C-alpha cells in the first residue's frame, strides 16, 4: 500500500514533466532536451522571490510563473522561431545547446550551492497518516492533486477554450491555421510559455520536496521517457506513461538496487520504442511526418 502511494506520487511528478514535453512537441515538433534546465531556472526564480519576499509563498509562486512564461516565450522567439524549417535534428541539438547555456547561467548567478527552500514553507513537508501505517506528506499530496488537475484541465482547455482550439489547429496543420488568420507565432510562443510553466511547477515542487541546485536538471530530463511512452503528441498518453515509468523506477529501487532505478525509465523507454515507437496513444503517422 505505501509502495503504491510512492508510485502514485512519482507518477504525478513525471506527468507534470511529461506534459511540458508534449505541449512543446505538439506546437513546434521539437523534443525539448532543455526541459530540465528550464525547470531549474524556473525553480531558482521561485527561490529568489521566496528569499526576497521573506517567505511569501504566494508571491514567489506568482513570480516564478510569470518569469517562466516570459522565459518560454523568449526561448521560442529568440531561438526556436529562427530555426523553424530546419531538419528536426537541428531543433533537438539547439535545445541541448540551450540547456547547457542555461545551466551555466544558473550557476553563475546562484552558484553551485544546494538549497532547501522547504525551510520557508514549514509544515508542508509533514507526513499525514491517511490509513494505518500509510503516510503521504503535504507536498506530495499537492503534487498528486496538481498533476491530476493538469492532466484533466489542459486537454479540456484545448477542447473548449478559443485559444485552445487555435493551439490544436496549429498543431494539426500550421499552414492551414495561418491561412485562417491565426497568428501561429503567438500560439507557438504561448505553447512554449505553457510548457516552461509546467517545467517550473515541477521544479518548484521538487525543490520544496527534495532540494534545489543546478544539478537537478537531470531530474527534468528524465521526463521525456513518460512523454514518449505515452505518445509524443498525446496529452492523455502522458498519464499512463508516467505511471509505467514511475512503477519501473520505484520497484527497481525497492527490489533490485537503487543504482538500477536510475536506468529503469530509459530501459522501459527502449523496450517501448521497440514495440510501439509511436507511443501508446500517439498517432502512427507522426513517425512518417519527421
Amino acid at each position: 500500500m505505501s509502495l503504491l502511494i510512492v508510485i502514485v506520487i512519482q507518477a504525478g511528478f513525471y506527468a507534470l514533466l511529461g506534459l511540458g514535453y508534449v505541449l512543446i512537441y505538439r506546437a513546434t515538433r521539437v523534443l525539448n532536451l532543455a526541459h530540465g534546465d528550464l525547470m531549474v531556472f524556473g525553480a531558482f526564480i521561485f527561490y529568489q522571490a521566496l528569499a526576497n519576499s521573506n517567505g511569501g509563498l504566494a508571491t514567489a509562486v506568482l513570480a516564478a510563473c510569470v518569469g517562466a512564461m516570459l522565459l518560454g516565450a523568449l526561448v521560442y522567439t529568440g531561438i526556436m522561431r529562427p530555426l523553424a524549417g530546419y531538419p528536426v535534428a537541428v531543433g533537438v541539438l539547439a535545445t541541448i545547446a540551450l540547456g547547457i547555456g542555461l545551466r551555466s547561467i544558473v550557476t553563475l548567478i546562484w552558484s553551485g550551492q544546494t538549497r532547501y527552500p522547504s525551510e520557508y514553507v514549514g509544515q508542508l513537508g509533514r507526513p499525514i497518516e491517511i490509513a494505518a501505517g500509510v503516510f503521504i506528506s503535504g507536498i506530495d499530496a499537492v503534487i498528486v492533486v496538481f498533476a491530476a488537475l493538469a492532466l484533466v484541465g489542459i486537454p479540456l482547455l484545448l477542447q473548449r477554450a478559443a485559444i485552445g482550439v487555435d493551439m490544436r489547429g496549429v498543431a494539426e496543420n500550421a499552414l492551414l491555421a495561418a491561412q485562417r488568420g491565426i497568428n501561429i507565432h503567438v500560439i507557438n510562443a504561448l505553447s512554449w510559455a505553457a510548457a516552461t510553466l509546467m517545467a517550473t511547477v515541477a521544479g518548484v515542487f521538487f525543490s520544496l520536496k527534495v532540494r534545489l541546485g543546478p544539478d537537478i536538471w537531470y531530474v527534468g530530463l528524465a521526463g521525456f521517457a513518460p512523454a514518449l511512452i505515452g505518445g509524443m503528441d498525446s496529452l492523455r498518453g502522458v498519464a499512463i506513461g508516467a505511471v509505467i515509468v514511475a512503477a519501473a523506477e520505484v520497484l527497481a529501487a525497492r527490489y533490485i538496487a537503487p543504482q538500477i532505478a536510475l536506468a529503469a525509465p530509459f530501459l522501459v523507454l527502449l523496450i517501448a520504442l521497440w514495440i510501439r515507437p509511436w507511443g501508446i496513444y500517439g498517432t502512427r503517422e507522426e513517425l512518417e511526418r519527421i
Partner: protein
Amino acid sequence: MLRSTQITVVAVAALGAAGLCTAPAGAQTAYKIGISGAATGPASPSYLPHIEGIRTYLRQLNDKGGINGAKVDVVFVDDKAAPSEAASNAKRLMDDEQVLAVGLMSLSSTYAPMFQAATRTKTPVLLLGQAVCPANAAGSQMNPFVFCGGSTSDPNTAGYWQVPLVKALSEKQGDQLKLALVAADIPISRQGIDFMEQLAKQLNVQLVDKQALPMGAADVSGAASRIVASGATYVTSWSPVTTAVQMLGALRRQGWNGWYIHNHSAEAEDTLRQLKDPKLVMSPEYAFTVEKLPVFAEIEAAAKKYGVTVPVDTMVLGWASGMMLEAALKQCGPSCVREKLVDVLNSLDVQTAGIYPDAIKWSRGDHTRPASFTAYAWDQKTQAVKRITEWSRVKGELAKVKVLD
C-alpha cells in the same frame, strides 16, 4: 649560403633566449601549488566551498606579502569529480606546471590516477577540504607522497566513532536500536559502511538494511520505502551530504520518525540550520561555527573583503587547508623543491586555530591526521545548532561517546 647561416644563428639565439626565460631563477620567486577539485559536477556542492575557502585564504596571505617574501602561485583545475579529468589534471600540474605540491579536494574516485602520478613524479599530494583519507594512509601499505589533511578520517576511524555514537544515542533515548546503513555509490563510502557493518555485529547492534545510493539520483523514495519496511529506528550514512539529505527527506515524507546520523561535509552546519530536524545528527571532526572561535570572525571578514558569496561555515575547512599549506611552505624555506617539501611534511606539526581540535601531525610512517570527533544537532528550544556530545579522540579502536544532556 649566407642566408641559411643567418637563419641558423637567429634560430639558435631565439631558442637560447627562450631557454633563459624559462630557466628556474636562483631564489624562490613564487611557490607554485596546484589545486585539483570538484568545482563543477554532481559532487561540487560538497567541494566547491572548500576551494573558495583556500582560495580566499591564499589571497589574503599574498596580499599580506606571501611566505618568506614570496607569493603563492596557485593553479586551480576542475576535475568534475571524474577520474579521467583527475588523470589529465595530474599530468598537467605535475609534469607541465611543475608544481611543488598538489592539493586534492574531490571525491575518492579521483584518487587512483592522482596517487599514481604522485608516485611517478614524486610530488606530494595533500588531501584537503573534506577529502576522505584512504584506509591505508599509515603503515607499510601507505603511499609515501599522500598526506591526509582533510576533514574526513579514513573509513575505519570513522566507523570506530559513528557506530558507538549511534549506540550511545539509542541508550540515551532508551529505545530499541534497529540500524540501517546508507552509502553513496562511490568506492570509499561503500567501504565505510562495510566496516560499520562489521562493527555493528561486534557491538551486537541489529542491522536491518544496507544500501548504496547513486550520486545524483532523482528520487530515492523507492529505496527509502525499503528502509521503512525494514523497521529501522536509526539510519546512519557515511557519504556526501546530498545523499543523506535526500534519504532523510524521503524517509520523513513516508512518515518515518527515527534518528538519522550522518558524518559531515562542507554543508553540514548549513544543512542542520536549513532543515531544522531535531533528530538529524551531524558528526564532524572539526568545530562548527557555533563554537564561536575567533578564526571564524577572521574568515567572515576576509569573505566580505574579497566578495566571496558562499556561507562562512562552509569555507572553514578550506581555510584550515590554507593554514597547513602556509606552515609547510614556510618551513620548506626560500629554495623549496618537492623533495624538501616531502621531508617537511613528514615532520609537520601545525595548529589550525581550533578548527581542528588537535594539531595536524604527520610522521614518516603515519600520514593520517590525529582526529577528535563530536556531534551536532538542531536544538528546538534555542532554535540553534548545538553540540550534543563531548569531543572524543579516536585512534584504532571503538570510541567512548559521552552524550551531553
